[in-house]
């Protein structure tokens, strides 16, 4: 299988940081706040590989660093240390060594992001179609009719009523907003998609539909995805492999079935037991 992303030693610290930060935080210390300098170690030494068409789940409680990881990879944040190698069609790109223009280009063309909160991913002042048009226009599609057509296709694909494509997304329900976000993320057919708590806050039937949609997209377009969630059901349904995080560290990793059926770490055991 072809590798698409290789992350090594990714760390993120909020605050001044000191030499003792990493050695005095983590699950063993039951904290991610450094007692010496007060910095928050949101993420430390994250390593993983992602392959084409694979869905990797990152699971953990609030504040465990799972969102921080995807935010760093999507360039929403600049990490404290670490490296990430993205295997683009012909060349390899070191994500954290790119200049802002190259980063923006990757974000626009090769990555897609779906946030938990739709107003981070969508511009609520422009129509649903306009949101998708924005991404197409970023990739130099300059034909109005073509943009219209592509936007309509994408919205139809994500089951948003195409009659409503010229409406503002703020008039949409939460589930619809998520679908528009997914359509927007898919506009440039990115090989890598980040999903940050996409179904949190939606009701169960809508959740199920969104998850179905994600699976369909994965099999249709062979998109690699990183799914961040605290919901075991989402992990069970989507992810082939899973990382379990706590206090910014990965405490357990492996095949999803294995983790859910036979959790090794005490925290994972507790998590699985409490959910089932």
């Amino acid at each position, binding site marked *: 299988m072809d590798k698409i992303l290789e992350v090594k030693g990714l760390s993120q610290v909020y605050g001044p940081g000191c030499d003792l930060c990493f050695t005095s935080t983590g699950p063993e210390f039951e904290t991610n706040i450094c007692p010496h300098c007060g910095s928050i170690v949101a993420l430390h030494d994250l390593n993983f590989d992602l392959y084409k068409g694979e869905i990797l789940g990152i699971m953990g409680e609030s504040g465990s660093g799972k969102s921080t990881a995807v935010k760093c990879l999507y360039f929403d944040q600049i990490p404290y240390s670490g490296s990430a190698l993205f295997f683009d069609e012909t060349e390899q790109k070191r994500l954290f060594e790119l200049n*802002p223009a190259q980063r923006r280009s990757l974000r626009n063309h090769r990555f897609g992001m779906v946030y938990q909160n739709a107003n981070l991913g969508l511009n609520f002042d422009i129509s649903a179609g306009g949101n998708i048009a924005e991404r197409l226009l970023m990739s130099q599609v300059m*034909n*109005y009719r073509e943009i219209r057509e592509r936007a309509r296709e994408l919205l139809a694909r994500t089951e948003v009523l195409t009659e409503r494509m010229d409406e503002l997304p703020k008039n949409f329900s939460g589930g619809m907003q998520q679908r528009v976000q997914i359509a927007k993320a898919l506009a440039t057919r990115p090989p890598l998609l980040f999903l940050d708590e996409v179904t949190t806050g939606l009701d169960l039937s809508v959740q199920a539909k969104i998850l179905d949609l994600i699976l369909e997209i994965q099999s249709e377009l062979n998109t690699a995805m990183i799914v961040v969630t605290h919901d075991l059901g989402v992990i069970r349904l989507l992810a082939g492999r899973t990382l379990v995080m706590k206090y910014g560290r990965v405490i357990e990793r492996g095949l999803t079935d294995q983790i859910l059926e036979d959790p090794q770490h005490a925290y994972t055991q507790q998590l699985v037991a409490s959910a089932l």
Partner: protein
Amino acid sequence: MSNGINFAFLDEYAKREIRRSVIKAICIPGYQVPYSSREMPMGRGFGTGGLQLTLALIGVTDTVKVIDQGSDDSVNAVNLRKFIEMTCPGIATTTRLQEATLIQSRHRIPEQALRADQILVLQVPYPDALVIVEPSEDKRKVMHGEADYSRLLVKLYEDIVKFDEITISHRYPTRINDHYIIDPSPIPRYDVPKLHNSKALILFGAGREKKIYAVPPHCPAEPLAFDDVPFRIEDFTDSRGERRACKLCGSQESFLDEFIDEQGERVYQCSDSDYCEQQQELAHG
């Protein structure tokens, strides 16, 4: 000078700074060069940006023409011209485009083509075309640097969705030399194509916003549009399908202003008063 005011009002250091900014603006077509807009004896927003450019560039051999919305006789033009005459002894002023070497204008580019030995200075209220989509200047600077104009294009997209055409009537975003997009000051769409490969140097001065930018001679200037929805200028065709003519000179080629006359009739007249007069002179021999 006997009354203690320096030639062209500004002190020489101020002029030098403005000239340096102008050179930079010419070197990077369409880039908004910040400068320390000086206090002028008139309110910001009354053309102080254009005036500072004019005053920094003017020499005793220059002949100046000042235009306000095409007219040499409206208040803004008259006052600025008087001010230039008062502070620049020895220079000449004119209303005839052909005689002018330095033309300061507000909201119009003259009807007739400019020559290579002329400089056009435009007064600019809002220098940044991105201001309608991004309020933060810091972010706008990054967007300009990366030529990230997709949000501006989305605005055009939304216009076509809502109204079936692009509804920007003036300040039409225009891409200079295939990179920076400028706000070409509130000139009508009719004037935008005149920026393209202009023989004369065109300078833009925003006094309140403290920016100078330029469209150098023979520089490509391309109004934003979609491949299948091209840019178009104002349409002066009447209900019978004929191009409306100027009431005074009869020209069917100029940009027209619409008036309601004393009888309540709708009448049209050249916006460029100098052009209109020259057409009338031609007609009457």
